[in-house]
C-alpha cells in the first residue's frame, strides 16, 4: 500500500477517482442549480463556459440548448455513471471470483465446463450482446447494471483461476487437507484470500470499461433513459449542437476519459506492485 502511494500513476488514479466519487456523492453541495432546472430558455441557452446569465447565475461549463447548466448535469450524471459502473463491477467481480476459484479448486469436468463457458463468453463481441439485451427489455439503469455485470466477469475469472491454481499447488494446501480440512474450508480460508488481489486489479480495469460501455449504450439510446443525466446521454445530447455549442459534448467526454484513465492507471500499478511482491 505504501509502495502504491509512492507510485505517481496510482496516486493520480486514486485522487481522480476520489474526487469523482466525492463530487457525485455530494452533488447537491457541488452545484447550486438542479440538473434539469430551466428558466428563460431563450435567454439562457447555449451560454459559453464561465458565462453569467441574466439571473446572475454563474455557469462554469456553460448551458445546453434548453438552458440547463452543464456542470450540474455533469455532476448529477456522475452519480448515474459511476453508480452503474460500481454496481456492474461488483456483480462481475463476485461472479468472476466464484467461477475462478471453483475452477481452481475442483478438477475434472467442473473445471472443464467452467473454463469452457469463460472462453466462450470472452469470444463474444460484448457490445453486440449488450445491444441485443439492452434493446430487448425496456432500457433502464438496473438492466444496464445486470447486463454489464453478466458480460464482464470473464477477465476476473481467468486471473483468479490462475492465482488459485498457484495456491492449490502450495504445500500449505496439502497440509490443510492432511489435517482433515474440507474442500470448502480450503477454498474459503486459503484460496479466496489469495485470489482477492488479482480480482481487485481486474475490477479496477473493469470499472473503467463498464463506465465507458454504459456511456456507449446511453449514447445509442438503449441505456439509462432521460431525463436522468448519464455521461453517455449527455454526450449524445451534445452531438446535435456540436457546431454552435461544442462544450455540451466535450465536458462529459473529458470527465469520462479522466475517470477511465484513472482506473486503468490504478489497475496497472496495483498489478505491478503485485508482481514485485511475488518476484514474478
Amino acid at each position, binding site marked *: 500500500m505504501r509502495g502504491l502511494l509512492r507510485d505517481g500513476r496510482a496516486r493520480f488514479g486514486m485522487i481522480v477517482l476520489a474526487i469523482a466519487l466525492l463530487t457525485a456523492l455530494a452533488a447537491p453541495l457541488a452545484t447550486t442549480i438542479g440538473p434539469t432546472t430551466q428558466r428563460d430558455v431563450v435567454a439562457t441557452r447555449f451560454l459559453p463556459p464561465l458565462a453569467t446569465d441574466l439571473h446572475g447565475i454563474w455557469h462554469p461549463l456553460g448551458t445546453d440548448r434548453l438552458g440547463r447548466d452543464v456542470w450540474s448535469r455533469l455532476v448529477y450524471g456522475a452519480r448515474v455513471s459511476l453508480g452503474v459502473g460500481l454496481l456492474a463491477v461488483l456483480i462481475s467481480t463476485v461472479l468472476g471470483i466464484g467461477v475462478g476459484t471453483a475452477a481452481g479448486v475442483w478438477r475434472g469436468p467442473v473445471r472443464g465446463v467452467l473454463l469452457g463457458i469463460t472462453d*466462450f463468453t*470472452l*469470444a*463474444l*463481441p*460484448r*457490445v*453486440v450482446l449488450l*445491444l*441485443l*439485451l439492452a*434493446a*430487448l*427489455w*425496456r432500457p433502464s439503469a438496473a438492466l444496464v447494471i445486470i447486463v454489464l455485470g453478466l458480460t464482464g466477469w470473464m477477465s476476473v475469472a481467468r486471473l483468479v483461476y490462475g492465482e488459485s491454481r498457484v495456491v492449490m499447488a502450495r504445500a500449505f494446501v496439502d497440509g490443510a487437507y492432511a489435517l482433515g480440512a474440507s474442500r470448502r474450508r480450503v477454498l474459503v480460508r486459503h484460496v479466496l484470500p489469495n485470489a482477492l488481489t488479482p480480482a481487485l486489479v481486474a475490477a479496477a480495469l473493469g470499472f*473503467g470499461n463498464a463506465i*465507458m460501455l454504459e*456511456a*456507449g449504450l446511453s*449514447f*445509442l*439510446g*438503449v441505456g439509462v433513459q432521460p431525463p436522468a443525466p448519464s455521461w453517455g446521454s449527455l*454526450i449524445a445530447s*451534445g*452531438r446535435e449542437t*456540436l*457546431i454552435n455549442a*461544442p462544450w455540451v*459534448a*466535450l465536458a462529459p*467526454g473529458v470527465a*469520462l*476519459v479522466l475517470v*477511465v*484513465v484513472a482506473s*486503468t*492507471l490504478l489497475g496497472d500499478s496495483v498489478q505491478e506492485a503485485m508482481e514485485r511482491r511475488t518476484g514474478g
Partner: protein
Amino acid sequence: MAGVVTLTFILLRLAPGDPVERMLGPAATPEQVAEQRRALELDRPLVQQYRSWLGRVSRGDWGTSIATGRSVRTMIAEAWPATIRLVGLSIALSYLLGIAVGALQASRSGSALDTTLSVSTVTLFALPGYWLGLVLVMVFAYWLRILPAFGAAGMDADFLSPGARLVDGLRHLALPAMTLTLIGIGGTARFVRAAMIDVRGAPHVAVATAKGIAPAQVTRRHVLRNSLIPVVTLLGLSLPALFSGAVFVEAIFAWPGVGRILVEAVQARDYPVVMAATTISAVLVVAGNLLAESLAVLVDPRLRAAEVSR
C-alpha cells in the same frame, strides 16, 4: 458459434415487445395482427421456429427484414465488405503504428519521451470511440472542412470517374478509420512496450549482447521479434473488442456496415436482421481468431515444431 446463434434466438423470442404490433401500428385490428403473425410464423412453438429458421439459413435463406421488407441476405451482403474495409484498415494501421510507438518507448524506457508517450497511449486507450469520433468530426468536418462527416460515398459518387470515386471513398473512410486506429494504437503500444521490456531481461538477450552484436541488431532481431509473438495472440483476443468499437463508430459516421444495421435492427426489433447480423459478427470474430492463430505459428517457429512433434 452455434452457441451464439442459439442464445440470440432464445433471447430474442423471450423478450417483451412485438415486432408485428410495431409493424402494423396501433390502428391494426386483432385479426390483422393474427394474420401477420401467421405469415411470419411467429405463432408456432419456439423449437419449431428455431428448427425452420436453421433449415432456411443452412440453405442460404436468411429471411426478409420485418422493418424494411428487403431480403436480409442482400442487406448483409451489401454491409459486410464495408465493415471489413473499415476494421481491416484500422487493424493494420493501429498495429503498425502501435508497434512502432511501443518499440520506441521500450528502447528509451524511463526517459521523458517514454513518459509522455505513456500518458498519450493510456489516454487513447481510454477514449470512447463515439466521443473521439464526434471530436474528429468537429475538427475535420466543421472547422477545417477538409473531410466528409458521414457515409461511405458522396452524393455525386455515381457520376465520378473511377479515380475520383476512389479518392471520394478514401476521404469518407478517413475519419471512421482514424477513430478506430487512434484507439487501437493506445492498446497495442502499451502491450508492445511491456512485452519488449519483459523480453529485454531474458537470458538470450544478455548472451547476444555479450557476443558483441550491435545494440540496434539485438533490439531488432532478439527483442522485437520475440515480443511480437504475444502481440499476434493479442490480435486474436482483441478482435471482439475491435468489432464492438466498430459498432459505435459505424453508428456515429453512418458507415453502411454490419454494426449500423445491427443497431438499427435492434431498435426496430427486426428479428431476422438481428439474428443475421449477430451471426455474421460471430463468424467474423471466429474467423479472425483462426487467422491470428495461424499467423502466430508463422511468426514463431517453435509453435510449428510443437505441432509436428504432436
